């Protein structure tokens, strides 16, 4: 993954955000991680980036957030022709199959459950970090 690529993290729980950031960095991912505390902040930033024609590389998205929830953010991202190609990975406490189905239907790239069993969580986040290190994230800013 190229160094200049940015990762967005939309997560209203400061603790969760810290844990995710720490573990992504521990897995070797040194990219900039921009943290948003609610869906509205995330959308505002994304719209700004669309104007600047600088679409972020990846969005890590929690579902339950104040103002605008993650599902709505996902829906808007996937409905926007400019943002559609940006991969979105859901990171959430919900393991409700209907909610997971809904995210997949809307077009999320992956779905990671925050397990209470922290080792699994760390494992999932580290794998994600490794995945991001190895896999070339598509150049979302290229014209269709």
């Amino acid at each position, binding site marked *: 993954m190229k160094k200049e690529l940015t990762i967005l993290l939309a997560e209203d729980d400061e603790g969760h955000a810290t*844990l995710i950031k720490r573990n992504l960095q521990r897995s070797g991912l040194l990219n900039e991680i921009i943290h948003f505390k609610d869906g509205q902040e995330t959308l505002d930033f994304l719209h700004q980036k669309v104007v600047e024609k600088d679409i972020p590389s990846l969005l890590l998205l929690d579902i339950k957030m104040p103002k605008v929830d993650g599902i709505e953010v996902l829906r808007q991202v996937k409905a926007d022709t400019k943002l559609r190609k940006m991969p979105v990975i859901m990171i959430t406490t919900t393991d*409700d199959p209907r909610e997971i189905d809904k995210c997949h239907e809307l077009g999320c790239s992956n779905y990671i459950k925050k397990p209470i*069993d922290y080792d699994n969580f760390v494992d999932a986040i580290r794998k994600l970090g490794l995945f991001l290190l190895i896999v070339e994230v598509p150049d979302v800013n290229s014209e269709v």
Partner: protein
Amino acid sequence: MDEKDQFMDELNHLRNKVIDLERENRLFKETEKKLQAANQQLLASELQMSANEQELMDKEALTRQALEYAENIISTVREPLIILDSDLHVVSASQFFYSTFKVSSKETERELFYNPGNNQWDIPSFKELLAKILPEKTVIENYEIEHDFEKIGKKTMLLNARELQQKKDNKRRILLSIQDITERKQAEQHLKHLNTELEAKTNELQQILYITTHDLRSPLVNIQGFNKELGTSLKELTKLFEGVNIPAAVKERLSLILNEEIPEAMHFITSSTNKMDALLTGLLTLSRLGRQKTFFKDINMHQLIQDVIDNFKYDINKNNVILSVSDLPDCKGDEFQINQLFSNLLSNALKFLDPERPGNIRISGEKGNEYIKFTVEDNGIGIHPHHQEKVFELFHKLDPQKPGIGLGMNIVNQIVDKHKGKIELESEVNGGTKFIIFIPI
């Protein structure tokens, strides 16, 4: 004529007269006899007549009795009854008709049925029913009329009508019973309303349960997560201290803190959060079960039980449990729920095996007339009769030392309920436990 002749003549004359008299006397006697006979006949007729009269009186009394009986029945029936002729004029009406509709017999009898009480029965749909349907059909059953009656207000009435068969004359008579079902209707409506409300409340409760359990999980991620972070820091700290020169007394204390006290505290944080998480997961499962719509289909039980067993393969192999499955009939149910039901039963059977003897679990099925019967039987530690009732209670744990949160059997019970089936439990301490599930065909 000499005197002798004259005397003879006289004698003859007298003799004749005697003969005449005797004849008359005979005649008289005969007549008297006849008269006597006639008199007797008359007496007999009179007796007959009085007997006939008695019979007539008896019959009349019987008729009166029958009429009284019928009238008593009619006046006891709390439904207003009314008898109409073929022109829909009122022949008679029961007391309850008058009291219910607040009309008198005077203004009702011989009147057109619609008229009494200021034309309060002048209801187009009802008129049409009587005028059109009644001539063709002899029966009206449970016809509902909602109408604002002038004297008694808005009511819902249930009408039933029968044609009365009259043998003597060919006149049609229609017996019409009118039942005021306004209150019943209102009660039904009320019940329906309450049911809707209850459903909404249940949904709301389940939603609350779902959201709460979900929200409660979030802080747990942090507690557990940062506890692990502390663990990582602790390891690093311990390592850092290794290379530092520290006085022996401090080192001893430091070692106690770093190697025992902090790890012990962290251990309790971990085990408590795990326990909390298990509770929340259970509650989530429960709330999901409540929110889920049951989806019935034919289930291949052999396949389903095989899937269930596959999930427990590790435990089964680890503990050398002998598991036997006999021929299982297919059944109708929600596949996901039936899977959960048998998973919970098998999990329990495995959990409560006696470590002192080889575990033996038997799953069998049998098709009955109304139910398919499934049995899950183990040779485990068994359940004491005192505890058997509590098995299905929410969060009831028979053995606090065993893993789990006391939810499995409650879920089993709920699933059986959702399938309108039943579950029975037979158990003997140190002998084993047998759960018998009946799923309706």
